[in-house]
């Protein structure tokens, strides 16, 4: 099957609508959230219409079907990531998944291998999304651990020259983004993971911006935990995934407490079911899990490598065209080596909010601001940027519309 974004667009009903009085929707904000194909929307609806019941909790047929539906989604996602079924934990989002890790680690008792003590070190980077930064800041505050980070160079790459002094024998956790949601930079994981394991630290990957866009295999990457959000991967809102190595999940204390995660409960104490159940308290976000299964199947059918290739192609085109516009400054790598399809830029003195508004008026959806990575935009010396982010349904025509819009805005605000 050849890859054809125009055919793919037909799967996404939202492209049937128009923007600001009849303009074509040019959606360049998939880094914030992706659009949804009919198969995903229908999978959720079908669950409600035909199989809805509390999974894992009833001896009746609907409950059996609901259980089967979410457990088969778990299997689909495990295969997609190259992990085992029982290593997949459903959360509401990556944000919850990262907070789960930080809270669970923070509650590990002294004898638990995850236990953090004052002086232990947690390593992140300057390009983290707030969701992979603030939970670790807070964990450090609670435990007395020290937060350290890799810096970002002006070209938008991590400075790894001081790897050995950043990741040390005291490092217990390295939590890093796979692809920056602002710069588009893809981080070279192999050497960092190797160093983390060398010193006995766990490696946590924020794969929000990679799993939807390219092949990611947890076994090949040799990482310990990974998170991603369904809504950025053509899946429903309200569902995220935490993958963790089985051996680590066995030791990790639970996070949310309630129904279905227990082994036994008295008025004063409780013990826990094995993972993944231990981390999934309450009636699950069932329809969303089912929808995410459909989303991942949809992506797999198209092929993650093909999606990645397509994105590289249009990103390369976008960068070269943007560079032709006077006063455009690209914030992030301008070569395509280890780079994905999020392109941030500034346009002379024109404020991103104004540029974004102008583009919106032409039907073009981009994001403006600090993109929930405020320390990064500060470091790059800009209060905010305009970001165009691409996905499988974007076309060269979309990029051309963006470039025309940028040039017109330049005239408008001149």
């Amino acid at each position: 099957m050849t890859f054809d974004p125009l055919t793919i667009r037909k799967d996404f009903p939202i492209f049937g609508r128009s923007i600001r009085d009849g303009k074509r929707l040019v959606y360049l904000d998939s880094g914030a959230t992706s659009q949804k194909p009919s198969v995903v929307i229908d999978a959720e609806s079908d669950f409600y219409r035909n199989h809805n019941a509390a999974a894992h909790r009833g001896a009746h047929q609907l409950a059996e079907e609901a259980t089967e539906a979410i457990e088969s989604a778990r299997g689909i996602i495990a295969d997609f990531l190259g992990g085992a079924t029982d290593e997949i934990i459903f959360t509401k989002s990556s944000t919850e998944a990262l907070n789960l890790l930080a809270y669970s680690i923070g509650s590990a008792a002294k004898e638990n291998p995850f236990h953090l003590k004052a002086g232990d070190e947690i390593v992140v980077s300057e390009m983290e999304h707030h969701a992979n930064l603030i939970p670790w800041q807070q964990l450090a505050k609670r435990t007395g651990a020290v937060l350290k980070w890799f810096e970002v160079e002006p070209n938008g790459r991590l400075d790894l020259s001081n790897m050995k002094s950043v990741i040390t024998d005291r490092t217990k956790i390295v939590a890093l983004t796979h692809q920056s949601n602002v710069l588009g930079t893809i981080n070279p994981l192999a050497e960092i993971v190797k160093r983390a394991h060398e010193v006995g630290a766990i490696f946590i990957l924020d794969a929000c911006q990679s799993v939807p866009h390219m092949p990611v295999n947890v076994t090949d990457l040799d990482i310990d935990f990974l998170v991603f959000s369904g809504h950025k991967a053509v899946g429903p809102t309200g569902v995220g995934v935490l993958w963790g190595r089985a051996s680590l999940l066995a030791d990790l204390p639970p996070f949310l407490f309630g129904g279905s995660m227990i082994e036994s409960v008295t008025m004063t104490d409780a013990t826990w079911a094995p993972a993944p159940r231990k981390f999934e308290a309450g009636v699950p976000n069932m329809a969303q899990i089912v929808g995410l299964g459909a989303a991942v199947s949809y992506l797999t059918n198209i092929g993650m490598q093909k999606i990645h290739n397509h994105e590289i192609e249009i990103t390369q085109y976008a960068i070269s065209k943007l560079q032709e516009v006077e006063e455009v400054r690209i914030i992030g790598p301008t070569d395509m080596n280890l780079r994905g399809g999020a392109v941030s830029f500034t346009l002379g003195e024109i404020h991103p909010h104004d540029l974004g508004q102008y583009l919106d008026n032409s039907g073009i959806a981009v994001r403006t601001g600090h993109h929930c990575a405020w320390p990064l935009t500060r470091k790059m010396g800009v209060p905010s940027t305009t970001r165009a982010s691409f996905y499988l349904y974007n076309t060269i025509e979309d990029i051309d519309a963006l470039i025309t819009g940028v040039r017109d805005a330049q005239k408008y605000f001149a």
Partner: protein
Amino acid sequence: MELDNLYQEVILDHYKNPQNKKLATNYDAQVHHVNPSCGDEIDLNLTITDGVVANISWDGVGCSISQASVSILTDLLIGKPISEAYSIFDQFVSLMQSKGSIPGDESVLEDAIALAGVSKYPARIKCALLGWMAFKDASVQAQAKSELG
């Protein structure tokens, strides 16, 4: 009636007249297992002598499937060499997880074949396995102990 596939005569018989349902005072290993989703519980005592399952006794509360299943297990495994017991265990677990796709070998599973219908009711598989998992757990403990001693 479809339900009769699940609740075969043999199962209801074992349920009403459970075998070996009285904890022996001597044992090599004692385990307590719980099904957290329904609260069913079982205590199981096991003795292994010279590599043979010498005795299994139990007590517990649970549904007909879980009670019959452990009763059948005791009938089936007492007197068997532990290696044969394990092979029966494996076949039984496969049968339970088969979703009705395999019939099971009656010459090996004997009365336990009556539980084949359970495999079509995913929520009940854990009931049928409760006693079997307890047996497996106890046997591992008993063997570890005999190796030590």
